[in-house]
C-alpha cells in the first residue's frame, strides 16, 4: 500500500518536473532580447567559478566586436546578438551549454570553451548539430579529426611547448630546466611536450613539480625542492595568477633563476599581481599591442576605452574569432555551413593577433611571439623565435 503511494508520487513528480523543465527552458529563451531576424552567435566559457576571469575577458572582447558591427548597421541590415553560456569551467556543465546552443537553430557559431576539458566534453554535441566551434583551448586531442566542426584559433600545447623549448635551448642557452606545472590538461600537456622537446635538443629536466590552479597559493615546498636541484631555467606551465605568486615566492626563497612562461600568463594582470618579481620573465604569447597588425591599435584603444583595461591574449583571440565569424556571415550568408566553408577557405584573414588561416586539421597556422616583462611593462623580447 505504502509502496504504491510513493510510486504514484514519484512518477507524478517526474512528469511534473519534466514539464517544468520544458516550460522553463522555453521561457528563458524569450528573455534574450532578440527578434527573429537577428543573427545570433554564441560564446561558451567560464563566467563564474575558478576561471571566471578568463571567460569574462573573452566575453568583453566578443561583445566589442559585435557592437562594432552593429554600430555600422549590422550585417545586411540585421542586428548581431551574442548569447553567452556559462560552463563554470566544469566539464559536466559544458555539454549542457552545448546542447542548449545546439538546439537553438538561430545559433550560427560558437566561440569557446576556454578549458580544454570543457571543449573536449562538448565538442561531440556541436559536431552532431553541425555548429562550427572556434575554440582557444590548447589540448591537442581537440582537433584529432573526429569532430570536423571544431576549429582552433590558438596553437596546440605541443606546438607551443616545442617552440618554447627550442627558444630556451638555442636562444637562451639553457641546459638544466625545472618544470612547475598546473595539474590540469593545459599544464600537463605542456609539461610533457616541453620536457620531451627539451631533452631531444640535449637539455636536461632536473625537476618536475605540480600545483592546482585556483587552489594552490603556497608554492614554497615545490620551489625549495627545485632550488635544491640547481636549475638554470624554471618553466612554469600555468596561468598568470599562480605564475605571479610563484615568481614572488621564489624570490623570497632565494631561487634566482630565469623563468619561462606560457601563453597563459600574457596579461597585464601578471604585473599587477607579481610586481617586481616578474621582471625579466620570458613567455609565449599570440598577441601584443605593440606587435601591430591591421586593426590591432584600434582594437586595443577601443577595448581600453570601454573596459578600462588592456586586452589580453584570450581577449584578442576571442575578438578575432568573432570577426572571423562575422566576416563569414557577411560573405556566405547566415548559415552554419557557410561559416565552415569560409573557415576552410580563409587565408591570412587580418586578425588583430596576426593573419589567420587554418590547416587541414583545422588548427590555426601562426607563430608564437616571445614576450618579456621590462620596467613593469610587457614588451616583445629582443630576440624572437624563428
Amino acid at each position, binding site marked *: 500500500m505504502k509502496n504504491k503511494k510513493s510510486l504514484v508520487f514519484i512518477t507524478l513528480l517526474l512528469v511534473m518536473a519534466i514539464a517544468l523543465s520544458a516550460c522553463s527552458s522555453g521561457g528563458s529563451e524569450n528573455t534574450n532580447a532578440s527578434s527573429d531576424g537577428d543573427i545570433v552567435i554564441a560564446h561558451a566559457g567560464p*563566467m*563564474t*567559478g*575558478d576561471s*571566471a*576571469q578568463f*571567460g*569574462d575577458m573573452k566575453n568583453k572582447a566578443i561583445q566589442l566586436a559585435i557592437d562594432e558591427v552593429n554600430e555600422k548597421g549590422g550585417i545586411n541590415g540585421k542586428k548581431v546578438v551574442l548569447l553567452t553560456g556559462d560552463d563554470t569551467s566544469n566539464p559536466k556543465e559544458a555539454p549542457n551549454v552545448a546542447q542548449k546552443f545546439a538546439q537553438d537553430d538561430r545559433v550560427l557559431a560558437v566561440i569557446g570553451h576556454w578549458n580544454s576539458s570543457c571543449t573536449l566534453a562538448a565538442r561531440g554535441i556541436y559536431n552532431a548539430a553541425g555548429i562550427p566551434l572556434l575554440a582557444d583551448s590548447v589540448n591537442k586531442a581537440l582537433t584529432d579529426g573526429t569532430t570536423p566542426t571544431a576549429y582552433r584559433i590558438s596553437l596546440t600545447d605541443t606546438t607551443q611547448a616545442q617552440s618554447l623549448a627550442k627558444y630556451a635551448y638555442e636562444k637562451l642557452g639553457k641546459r638544466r630546466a625545472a618544470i612547475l606545472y598546473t*595539474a590540469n590538461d593545459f599544464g600537463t600537456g605542456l609539461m610533457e611536450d616541453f620536457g620531451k622537446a627539451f631533452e631531444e635538443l640535449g637539455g636536461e629536466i632536473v625537476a618536475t*613539480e*605540480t*600545483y*592546482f590552479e*585556483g*587552489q594552490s*597559493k*603556497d608554492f*614554497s*615546498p*615545490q620551489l*625549495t*625542492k627545485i632550488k*635544491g636541484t640547481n636549475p638554470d631555467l624554471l618553466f612554469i606551465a600555468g596561468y598568470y*595568477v599562480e605564475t*605571479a*605568486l610563484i615568481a*614572488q615566492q621564489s624570490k*623570497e*626563497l*632565494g631561487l634566482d633563476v630565469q623563468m619561462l612562461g606560457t601563453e597563459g600568463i600574457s596579461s597585464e*594582470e601578471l604585473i*599587477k*599581481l607579481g*610586481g617586481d618579481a616578474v621582471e625579466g620573465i620570458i613567455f609565449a604569447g599570440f598577441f601584443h599591442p605593440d606587435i601591430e597588425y591591421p586593426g590591432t591599435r584600434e582594437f586595443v584603444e577601443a577595448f581600453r576605452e570601454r573596459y578600462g583595461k588592456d586586452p589580453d591574449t584570450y581577449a584578442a583571440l576571442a575578438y578575432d574569432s568573432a570577426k572571423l565569424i562575422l566576416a563569414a556571415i557577411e560573405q556566405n550568408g547566415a548559415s552554419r555551413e557557410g561559416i565552415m566553408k569560409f573557415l576552410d577557405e580563409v587565408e591570412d584573414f587580418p586578425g588583430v593577433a596576426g593573419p589567420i588561416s587554418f590547416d587541414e586539421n583545422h588548427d590555426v597556422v601562426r607563430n608564437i611571439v616571445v614576450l618579456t616583462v621590462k620596467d613593469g611593462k610587457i614588451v616583445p623580447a629582443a630576440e624572437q623565435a624563428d
Partner: protein
Amino acid sequence: MFLEQLSNGIALGSLYALTAVGYTMVYGIIRLINFAHGDIYMMGAFFTYTAIVYFNLPLVPSFIIGMACAALLGVLIAKFAYTPVFKAPKINLFLCAIGMAIFLENFAMLLWGPETQSFPTIIQNQIYTFGGLKFTKLQAVILLISIFLALVLSYIVKKTKIGRAMRCASQDMVAARLMGINTNKIVFITFALGSALGAAAGTLVAMYYKAVYPMMGFSAGLKAFVAAVIGGIGSITGAMFGGLIMGVVESLGAAYISSGYRDAIAFIILIIILLFKPTGLFGKTVKEKV
C-alpha cells in the same frame, strides 16, 4: 633543505592555524560546522581591500574596518540564516551554511568581479634567519598575530563573564537559558568574534600572497576545517596545533613524497588521527546521554 622546508611548513601552518581558530570557536559554542567561515574570511579580505584601494585608508584602520564589517556580516548571517533553523534538525543548519557559502562566493563575484585583485604591498619583506629556520617579516607577523589572537580568545572564553556564558551555552543551551543567560546574544557575540577572526586571517593571507579573489575562501575553509578537526574541534589550542601540524606535514609531504598529492597528505593525516583518536588531538570525549 629539511630546515627550509620546515620553515615553509611553519609559515603555512600559522596561516591555517589563524583560520582554524575562528572556525573552532564557532563550533565550540554552537556545534555548527560553519561552512561559510572560509567565505567570511574572503569577505573580510575584500572589505579591507576596499577600504585601502577605494577609500585610500592606511593599513591599520582598514584592517579594523575589515574585521568590524566581517563581524557585522557574521551577526547578520547568524540572525537571518542560522537562528531560524536552530530548532530544526542539525542537517538543515548544515545545509544553510553550505547555501551561505555558495551565496557569499557569488555575491563577492558580482560585487568585485571574478578576477584576482592584487592586494597592495604594505609590509616590505625582509628575510630573517633563526637557527637555520628562515622566515620573512610578514611570516613572523602572521605567526605572532595568530598566537596573540588565540591568547586573547582564550582569555575571553576562560576569564570573562561573557566567556563563561559562552561555555555555559556550549554545554547546554536550554539550561543556560534557564539560568538567565541571553543565549541569542551569546550566539551573536560568538559569530561576531569568529567572523572578525576570520576576517583577520583573510586579510593577512591576502597580504601574504598579495592577492584577493572570490574563491579564496573555498579551499582555505576546507583546510581550516581539517586543521580544526585534527586539533580536536572546539579547542583553541588544538586548532593552533592542528594548523601548524598540517602546514608542516603538507610542506614536507610535498617536498619528499609528491607535490601532486599534497592536499591528499593533509587528509590522510586527518583520517589516521581520527581513527586512533576519534575526537582529535585535544578534543574532549563527550559521553552520549541515553
